Structures are given as structure tokens and as C-alpha cells.
């Protein structure tokens, strides 16, 4: 049996209409929700003094996990770390090793947002790079694009328990998430959990603040001491600065 021309054309027409109309959905779908209530008057950033950071202190990583309901699955390949402690040492071992926390750098030119097909990852006016977990399709392209390994896919179902922070949602299976500069705290005028924990520990290695405010502690420091960012050569303009690296 061979289909006649009409059938061929009909089938093709339906297929064509499908592919043509699908992108056209943009025209009738609701416009993306306004991405941010934040204001470009602020430019949030962090400064970490590695001289004050102790190699066996993990106060910041614990605080982040607690504040943001970041789960551990007991599998180092899949455990989620929005912030982690790194030990770095020159390859010739001429100098002692240095310990420092690394998290999302809230890049000014974030490749994660550039590659995200759904704009689930976006940059707020105040410079915080966020993931809308309801819009993320879990394609993981951003994980390949981020040079700092700041992003993790949630590989398993997570659930609330008595230790969970009720103010913050639990992490959703199948989407990619990362440090959000504790946006819920910052919008409330508070400090990110890791910064607060570092302070509580008496280390004061982390400062968080507004670079657009010339009087802020972070602005003054960045003007007066030598700081640098990780892989500045990539041109992403990270907003986590390091002193003493």
C-alpha cells in the first residue's frame, strides 16, 4: 500500500504547522514575570580575606546548608554544595596551602545565564544571579558553562524534616540550583548566612555589602587593599572578591 500525495502533503502540513506554531507560542503566552523588584542602586558583592580563613573551619558551609535546606545525599558525586571549602597549593609546593570558601561568584557577565534556554537563570538589577526553579527545565547546560562549578542538579527527591528552615523552600528534584547570596535575607536587610556564621565564629573573613555605596565596608576595603577575583582572565567580572590570595 502506498499513501497518495494528498496524505503525504497532509501529514507534512500538520508536522510543519506544529513546528512553526510552537515557537510562535511566544506571541500568546504570558510575558515573563518581571524579573526583579530589586533596584540597580545596589550592587551586592562579597569580599573574602583568605588570611583569616582557617582550613578546618566549615562554619560558612554548615550555615548555608542549614539556611537554604541544601541536602547531602551521602554520595560525593551528587552531594550539593552551594559553598565549599577549597585547599589550594602551588604545584611546586613552595608555599603553604591556602584555604578558602568558593561559591557562585554572581558574575556580571554570567555564562550560566547566557546559555540558559528559558531565562530560568537571570541576573537581578542588584547583580544577584538567581535561578527560578519553576522555570528551570533541568537541561544542565548552565552546569557545563559555569567555570566555577557553582551549580548542582538535584538528583534525588528531597523532603522537609524538623531541621529544615521553614522560611526557605526545599530543593526541587530535576532542577539546577546554586548559591543565591541568601537573597531572602539580603532583601530583609540582613547578611547572608555564611557571612553571619563566619562572624559568629569570630573569624570575620567574609564581608558582604553594596559596592554602589562608597561608604560601605566592602567598598572601602576594595578601594584600599589589593583584592582579586578567581579567573579574572575569563572576563566574567565575578562579584566575590578575595584578599590575600
Amino acid at each position, binding site marked *: 500500500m502506498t499513501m497518495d500525495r494528498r496524505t503525504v502533503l497532509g501529514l507534512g502540513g500538520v508536522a510543519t504547522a506544529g513546528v*512553526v506554531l510552537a515557537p510562535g507560542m511566544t506571541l500568546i503566552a504570558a510575558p*515573563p514575570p518581571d524579573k526583579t523588584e530589586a533596584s540597580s542602586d545596589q550592587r551586592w558583592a562579597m569580599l573574602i580575606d583568605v588570611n583569616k580563613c582557617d582550613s578546618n573551619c566549615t562554619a560558612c558551609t554548615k550555615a548555608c546548608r542549614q539556611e537554604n535546606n541544601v541536602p547531602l545525599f551521602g554520595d560525593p558525586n551528587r552531594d550539593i554544595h552551594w559553598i565549599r571549602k577549597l585547599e589550594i597549593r602551588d604545584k611546586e609546593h613552595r608555599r603553604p596551602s591556602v584555604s578558602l570558601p568558593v561559591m557562585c561568584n554572581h558574575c556580571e557577565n554570567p555564562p550560566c545565564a547566557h546559555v540558559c534556554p528559558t*531565562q530560568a537563570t537571570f541576573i537581578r538589577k542588584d547583580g544577584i544571579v538567581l535561578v527560578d526553579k519553576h522555570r528551570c*527545565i533541568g537541561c544542565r547546560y548552565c552546569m557545563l*558553562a559555569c*567555570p*566555577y562549578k557553582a551549580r548542582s542538579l538535584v538528583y534525588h527527591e528531597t523532603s522537609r524534616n524538623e531541621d529544615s528552615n521553614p522560611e526557605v523552600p526545599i530543593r526541587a*528534584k530535576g532542577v539546577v540550583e546554586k548559591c543565591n547570596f541568601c537573597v531572602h535575607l539580603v532583601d530583609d536587610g540582613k547578611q547572608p548566612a555564611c557571612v553571619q556564621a563566619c562572624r559568629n565564629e569570630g573569624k570575620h573573613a567574609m564581608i558582604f555589602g553594596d559596592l554602589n555605596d562608597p561608604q560601605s565596608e566592602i567598598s572601602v576595603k576594595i578601594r584600599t587593599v589589593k583584592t582579586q577575583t578567581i579567573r579574572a582572565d575569563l572576563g566574567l567580572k565575578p562579584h566575590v572578591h578575595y584578599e590575600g590570595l
Partner: protein
Amino acid sequence: MLSNFTAIEGRSFGYWKLVTFFAVLILMGAGAFVAVEIHGHGITGMNNKIAWGVPHVFAISMLVMASGALNLGSMSTVFAVKQFKQFGRFSAFLAIALLIGGLAVLMLDLGRPDRLLLTMMHMNFTSMFTLNVFLYSGFIIICFLYLWSMFEYQQYTKVIGSAAFMWRVILTTGTGSIFGVLHAREVFHSALTAPTFVALSLSSGTAISIILLVTTFKHTKRRLDDIVVFGLRNALIFFTLLVAYLLVVEKFTKFYSPAFYDVQNWILTGPYSWLYLLGVWGAAILIPLGILFHPSRGNSVKGVLWASISAVIGTFALVAHILLAGQAYPLNMFPGYEVSSVFLDGVTATYTPTSVEYILGFGGIAVAGIIYLLGIKFFRMLPDKAVAPEGYELPWNP
């Protein structure tokens, strides 16, 4: 040389056995998809360092082959190679089948495939993914129009065929650029990654066409002249040399820069070196060339068939190498420093794919396979005999 196009009978036991086999694979693939949906990507071998695994290898290899499958059509329409004109319909149809198979795997492997429509609603035009959504949908439309023109309006075939040719070059550039544009990934960040994908699509598309033509014609007892296959062989040789050339230029350039010594040495001697040496250089390049240049094997259809099979395996290997080795190589956050952390910074990632990933991948191949099988049964895709134009001689034989 006027070809008469006829549908295959498709009534034999062998035909239905093959259709059933693909149908079962598709069902299994669907099962794998549902399992990942329910349990999350935790049941795959993927992890936070190898976030794209075996399903992506299948999907991207098929997308690359899809654009290459259009080759036979382009060669006849754009470059006026007469003896391939009879494969124009086959070529456009195979391209559509492979593209649908590849896209199916890509979409079903998403963490949240239920939200797929969001890519249509919140487009981000800086994303290679978004651009590829347009490139892929456009490709399907153009292939269909091309097919239509060949069936109905031959006066438009040249125009649409030329458009299809340009589109597929851009399309494969887009696929290669998914990787090439990522600055932080030293293994594949290169302006040559996209052209290498284009060359790979040409070689693999030709190879898969040879495999399908030879087997389909044999099993449907249609006549396929050796000289037609040898014409394809010559094209396959040229395209394979093109892939080799681009790979050599890339390595050559990188070895001139000490900054790349570490990563290049790792590619040649690290845990993925077997994939690079045996898969990329062996299966994709040296084995096919060795067979095709051989005075007796290169002049037998069987030899050409084996070379093509090796080229297709090599295509999967090359894509797998770019993807898996590319992600496994540790990100160089502090050049010149050793790095360690609980997040496995500074170490080569490990990845052991699980069966669900392979089942999903083979499901995609089965989708393409079943489309092909049903297509040649219900539409007049194939010439009832494939012969070369009268007096035609090949310019070169091994």
C-alpha cells in the same frame, strides 16, 4: 537515467520482525524515561561533574548524522552529482528521521521535561540551545519542503535543496557551538569544534547512508550498482580526511601553547585516552581509511560497508570524547595550583553510565529506525534500482 520510485513491499517476516524489535526498544526507552521521571537523575550514572552523559552522546551523534544524511541530496542538487539524484528523497527523509530520534532523547533526558514548552515561551537568544530550537525546527520544515518539491514540484528542488544545504551547515555549526563556545572547558573550547562537527556530520551522514542503502537494497532485492556505492566511498574518504585534518590542526595549534600542555597531555594519556586513540583516531578515521584505501577491500561493497560501520561507531566515540572527557577534565580555577575539596575539585570526574541511559539512547535510535522503516514502506522514497548514468566512470579507485 530516470529513476522510478516505489515503496518497498514490507510484508516479509524479516521486515515486521525489525519493526517489532524497534517498537520494543521504543517501549523500553519510554520505560526508562518514566523511571527517571519518577526517581530523578539519581538512577542514572550522571553526577554534578558529568551532567551530560550517555543520552546526550546518543542524541548529539544522531543530530550530527541527521544533518549529514542530507548530504546525498545536497551533492545531487547543489553540486550536480548526477548519480546521487536518485537518493534525494531517501536523504531528506533519513535526515528527518534521525533528527526526530535525536531530539526525542535530548528532550526526554531533561530534568523537567514537562516544562519543555517554557523554551518556547521564555526564549533567551543568547543561548545556543534556543538558537538550536529554531535551527532544528527550521531544518525539519526545510527537509519536508525539499522532499515535497522532489515529489511534486521538481522546478523548486534546486532552490530548496540549496537552502537546505546552507541550513544544515549552520545547524551543525550550532550543534558544535553548544560546546565550542564554553570558555571554561579546555578540552572542547575551540573555534574549530563547530567546523569539526560539520566535517563529522558529512562523514557520518555519508556512512549511515551507505549502511542503510546497501542493507535496504539487499533485503528488498533491488539493484544497487557497485559503482554507485564506490562513488559514496570516495565521498566518505574525502570527508574522513577532512575530520582528520581539523583534529590535527587543533592539536597542532594547542601544542604550540604551553598553557595547553596539561590538558593535551591528559587527552593523550589520561583516563579517556583510550576513547580518543581507539575511538576517535581508530574507529572514526584510521580504520575506515585503512579499509577504503585498500586495493581489494576498498573495491568491495562489503569493505565499504564495514568502513562505514566503523565511521558511525567513531562518530559516537568522537561525540562521547568531547562530551565526557570534556566534562571529566577538572575545571582549572586556579592555574598553576593544586586544588582539593569535598566537592571533588581538582580531580578527574568519574562516571559509570547505568542501563537506563543506554536504554533511553537506543530508544532514540529505534524511533529513527521505525520512522525509516515505515517511511520506505508507505512512501515512494527509494528508486526501484540504483544505477549510475550511462558511460559514468569514477575518477578514482583505490
